[in-house]
């Protein structure tokens, strides 16, 4: 029988001969790891949901034309040497349009970093509601592309969103407006453009983003319809949205766009910096709580093994006397700790998975999140691997200190003391 087999036999017998203590030590680890799994799964699930709420449907780079006064006035170009004062500079009209949008998009589509490009036209409109009009925005889109890149269908609560491509004068109406105006799918709504012209539209689907301020103003129409609403030509585009293959390139890409095409470009990180912060703080809290639990479990194991070594002084002395090396003795105690960690951790993973699964089956109905029916839970196997590794490492450390004590026990002192 190998040394390992012999040591394992002693270890196993020791653990089994005091089942209660071993089970309590292992339970500490089980709850530590279980809680870690549950918290990580639940927290990151929620994080993913919240991030997805904003980030998944946010383009990685938005290209638009800010309405702002020109930085360089004509007189500066004509007389560069002179000092001149121009006061009350105002932006020129029609500046919302991106110049040469169609060639720009063609260029972007050729770029290898780009996953997809969509064009939008945001048309300011009014929803006719009896005597009063409601402010609104009808965004002209290519709905199939929007769905492919930004999963807009996740936010369609009812109706067929592709209807706006199939039929003319159709609209996907924001759920907030539909509620205010008591409208249902199939009903007609009248849109007024800023010039006062009236366009009757048929509602084919309802859109709910979960953000009330958006749902109360936002509607989607076909791009051509929006251009007709605005009375502009088919090259009139106010936003070009780019989705990249790698979101981390967004900042560089947006800078490059600004330089090359003389347009405003906004990257996703700048636009949504607060979400990153929120996510990392929530992760930090989760790790802190879980690590605390495991450290407490580790102290439990340390305590139990320490007590056990005092009980087993005689056994340690005779093992050393009969030829077991000090390292063999310390292996016995370390392997006890690791076994406790392994089984405690394994049950912790199972416990964590079962509770996570139960949470993921719990109904979670909220108006703000139309497509979410149950609590979001992240079952990322990485957390299970990390949890197991952490269980082993922390129990190893908890066993290491007592085992050093066992290693140092001088058999002569024990045996002479009797």
């Amino acid at each position, binding site marked *: *029988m*190998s*040394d390992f087999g*012999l040591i394992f036999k*002693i270890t196993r*017998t*020791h653990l089994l*001969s005091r089942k209660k203590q071993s089970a309590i030590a292992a339970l500490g680890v089980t709850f530590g790891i279980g809680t870690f799994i549950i918290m990580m799964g639940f927290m990151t699930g929620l994080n993913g949901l919240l991030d997805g709420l904003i980030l998944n449907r946010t383009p990685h780079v938005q290209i638009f034309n800010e309405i702002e006064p020109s930085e360089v006035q004509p007189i500066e170009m004509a007389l560069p040497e002179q000092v001149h004062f121009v006061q009350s500079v105002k932006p020129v009209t029609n500046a919302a349009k991106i110049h040469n949008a169609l060639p720009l998009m063609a260029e972007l589509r050729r770029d290898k970093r780009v996953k997809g490009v969509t064009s939008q036209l945001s048309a300011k409109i009014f929803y006719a509601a009896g005597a009063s009009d409601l402010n609104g925005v009808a965004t002209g889109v290519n709905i199939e592309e929007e769905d492919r890149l930004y999963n807009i269908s996740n936010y369609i609560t009812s109706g067929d969103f592709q209807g706006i491509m199939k039929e003319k004068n159709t609209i996907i109406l924001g759920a907030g407006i539909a509620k205010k105006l008591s409208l249902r799918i199939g009903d007609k709504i009248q849109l007024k453009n800023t010039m006062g012209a009236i366009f009757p539209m048929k509602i084919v689907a309802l859109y709910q983003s979960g953000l009330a301020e958006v749902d109360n103003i936002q509607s989607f129409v076909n791009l051509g319809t929006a251009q007709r609403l605005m009375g502009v030509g088919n090259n009139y585009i106010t936003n070009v949205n780019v989705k990249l293959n790698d979101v981390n390139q967004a900042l560089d890409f947006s800078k490059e766009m600004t330089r090359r095409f003389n347009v405003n470009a906004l990257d996703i990180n700048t636009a949504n910096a607060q979400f990153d912060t929120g996510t990392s703080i929530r992760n930090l809290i989760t790790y802190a709580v879980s690590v605390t639990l495991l450290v407490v479990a580790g102290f439990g194991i340390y305590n139990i093994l320490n007590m056990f070594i005092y009980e087993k002084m*005689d*056994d340690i*002395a*005779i*093992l*050393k*006397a*009969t*030829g*077991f*090396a*000090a*390292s*063999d003795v310390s292996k016995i105690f370390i392997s006890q700790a690791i076994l406790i960690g392994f089984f405690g951790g394994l049950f912790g993973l199972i416990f964590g998975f079962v509770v996570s699964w139960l949470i993921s089956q719990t109904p979670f109905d909220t108006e703000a999140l139309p497509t979410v029916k149950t609590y979001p839970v992240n079952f990322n196997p990485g957390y299970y691997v990390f949890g197991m590794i952490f269980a082993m490492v922390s129990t190893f450390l908890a066993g290491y200190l007592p085992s050093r004590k066992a290693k140092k026990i001088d*058999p*002569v002192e024990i*045996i*002479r003391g*009797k």
Partner: protein
Amino acid sequence: MSLLKTENINKYFRDPVLFHALKDVTFELQKGEFASIMGKSGCGKSTLLYILSTMDTDYEGKLYFNDELITNKSAEELAKLRNEHIGFVFQFHYLLPEFSVLENVMFPGLKLAKKSKEEVEFDAMEKLKLLGMESQALKGANKLSGGQKQRVAIARALINNPNIIMGDEPTGNLDSKNSDNVFNIFKELNQTEDLSLLVVTHDTEFAEKTDRIIEMGDGMII
């Protein structure tokens, strides 16, 4: 031929006060010798035994085992030497209570790992038979009486067929009947297997039956 030999062994205890426990002890034990060490409490006889046993390495002087200098060998090497060549019997049995009698006897043999588990088990049964304990082999070690436990401890000391058995008051906890019994076992092993024995004892009756009595007093061999 000498099995154990010491040259000018000195031993000091520093706690609580400096105490010179062994003074220039030079001593030799021949192969096949059955010797007992006697002396008053505190005369240093147990201290000497533990130095000879290689468990206590905190001494000055030289210790030879089988004519090989073993002073200053690593703890690992000494553990191996004890495992293979020295058997111990103490006043207390030191059996591992969670394990069966047979397992207790087998452990040093398994640690030596020169034989397969089956062979070690066979040997252990042989040793138990020798001591009349074979019927108790599968019992838990904590289920035996005091005399039985001591016999199992002797079987454990014999499992690797050592050169010597060292005893520290091996009969100290036993009544005279069991005490005689242990002596007879030792005597028989000494005669039939040419095993050396070195036993620290207070028991004059026991000591007088051995081949040689080493009297100690005040840290010296008298």
